């Protein structure tokens, strides 16, 4: 295998993993605060279409990425009002958010079908990407580096900061956190908004980097994979990183194996492999005695302040 080929494969892996990682980290923080938001796919689509629309009209893809975060955070705010203030069922509301996002993104995107956009290119000067090895380090989209920084940031926030400790307390026992005076709903609102912004950013990765175009259902179900990865990662940022890159590896190797002409396995089997891997890991985690799956104790439950 030539160096060029190896570098090309590794870069494709990073590209496939990054949006899953970013959306997954957002959802991880939301779930750590005790809220289950199944609307990731819908928020990603809203982010993808907004990012694309802003990038094509202004000519600045960076502005598009910011607009994507804002738009998806607004969509998540609707979800937050429904499940936190009005105490609607989180599963049903999350699903509704996905359906809403699919529809509204198609509506907003209608005038943008069939055109292309300036992309979020590399941030380093050309001489730093002139050889394959340099390209492997410096040749990625800025969002790939951002994904890695976010992993570190979320880990630090959850495990080393006081605010993160409060967020975890809210997710583990909302009544106890409330009793000692922490603002449960405020913490959850902020967590949901953060999750929305991350989903939007991940969505804009598709419309501004990977496939610089808008088409309906552009993300093709990646939001669901991000949600599954949170469980796969047992709510830990480090494992989230590993899970997203493992998923990227399996997707890429499946295609590379086919492109190289290996046909030992049926293509259907290879396509199913990432999902088989997810189920296998989930089974192993659940079987392990210590800490089991590590799910936040209040995940998915509505909170009503008593006294």
């Amino acid at each position, binding site marked *: 295998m030539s160096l*060029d*080929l190896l570098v*090309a*494969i590794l870069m*494709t892996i990073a*590209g*496939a993993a990054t949006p899953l990682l970013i959306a997954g980290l957002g959802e991880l923080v939301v779930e750590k605060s005790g809220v289950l938001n199944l609307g990731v796919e819908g928020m990603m689509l809203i982010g993808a279409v907004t990012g694309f629309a802003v990038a094509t009209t202004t000519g600045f893809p960076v502005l598009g990425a910011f607009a994507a975060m804002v738009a998806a955070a607004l969509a998540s705010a609707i979800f937050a009002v429904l499940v936190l203030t009005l105490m609607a069922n989180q599963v049903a509301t999350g699903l509704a958010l996905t359906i809403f996002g699919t529809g509204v993104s*198609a509506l907003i*995107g*209608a005038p943008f*079908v*069939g*055109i*292309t956009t300036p992309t979020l290119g590399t941030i380093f000067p050309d001489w730093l990407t002139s050889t394959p090895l340099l390209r492997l380090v410096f040749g990625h989209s800025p969002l790939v580096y951002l994904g890695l920084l976010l992993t570190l940031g979320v880990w630090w926030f959850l495990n080393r900061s006081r605010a993160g400790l409060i967020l975890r307390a809210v997710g583990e026992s909302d009544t106890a956190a409330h009793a000692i005076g922490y603002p449960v709903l405020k913490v959850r609102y902020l967590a949901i908004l953060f999750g929305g912004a991350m989903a939007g950013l991940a969505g804009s990765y*598709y419309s501004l980097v*990977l*496939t*610089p*175009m*808008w*088409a*309906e*259902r*552009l*993300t*093709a179900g*990646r939001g669901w994979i991000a949600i599954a990865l949170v469980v796969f990662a047992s709510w830990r940022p480090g494992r989230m990183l590993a899970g997203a890159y493992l998923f990227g590896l399996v*997707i*890429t190797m499946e*295609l*590379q194996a*086919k*492109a*190289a*002409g290996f*046909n030992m396995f049926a*293509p*259907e089997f290879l*396509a199913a492999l990432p999902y088989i891997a997810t189920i296998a890991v989930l089974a192993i985690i659940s079987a392990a005695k210590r800490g089991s799956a590590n799910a936040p104790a209040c995940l998915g439950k509505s909170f009503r302040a008593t006294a």
Partner: protein
Amino acid sequence: MFALSRRKLLAAGAAFGLAATSIAPAFAQDGEGKDKVKAAFVYVGPVGDFGWTYAHDQARKCLEKNLGDKVETSYVENVAEGPDAERVIRQLAQDGNDIVFTTSFGFMNPTIKVAKQFPNVKFEHATGYTTGGNDNMGLYNSKFYQGRAVLGTIAAMMSKTGKAGYVASFPIPEVVMGINAFELAAKKVNPDFKTQVVWVNSWYDPAKEADATKALLSQGADVITQHTDSPAPLQAAEEAGAIAFGQAWNMESFAPNAHMTAIVDQWCPYYTKRVQALLDGTWKADNVWLGMAEGEVEMAPFNDKMPADVKAAAQKIVDETKAGTYEVFTGPIKDQSGEVKIPEGEKIPDEDLLKMDWYVEGVQS
């Protein structure tokens, strides 16, 4: 509650009886035609895919333009192939549509089932091979493989590595036929030309289509062609400086440098003809497979970057196909193992093409 629902049930039964008696004379007049036709379309993807479904929807709009207020159309998009499709098709039949066009291979069996239950409604299924004996169901398809032969010729003349990458959806006859036509035409230019196929197991998944393209490019292909519905492979080819072709519609805007031409699906003449037949009372279940000669398959304008000799060779195939003097599936054709499958001078009959499940020599899958 029970009384209410029973009353509703009785009312519904009475309404049904009335409807049945009023439908009967209407049906008897069928041979004399209709003043207005309600036509419905079932799409497998979103109308904004800028590919397969987009082409069908453009034809629907064109049909409305051609027939004016004599036709009323509606559509349902994003219908999954399988049981859900049956529900959608049945709903459309119940809603009083006179004709329902189901536009994806996987809608065939659901269409057959619903057609049996609604003998007064006409059904037309795209790309299928059987109507299950229904005489109110027709089949229609286009000979896209004629366009694939043009692409194969361009690919082999412009490729430096002698290898094309083919991003494919599912191994069904329609797709297999396209791959074979591409490789056979390419082989006439360069006998050592290879076509490497990657199955993405989806009609529409932009991210996966793009990643598959990258995989093919990194393995030495410098021409990309696709049988999936999004422009993502074109964009990935554009970025890498390779050449590629549009699918179902002119996709030049996505890849101005890479896009050499595209196979453009023109369904409008057929839709107009069939709805007109229904208006005239001359509709009959049929099985048609039309191509370039009938204007159902067109090539998008050739890119200016294409050298003059390549343009001439591509245009020659278009002209000869229209004239009926060029047929890509003419022997001798060898299969993957190198055995002669179709002897010299013999053509593969249409019914065998529609069942094609083997690859010609030079296809790597």
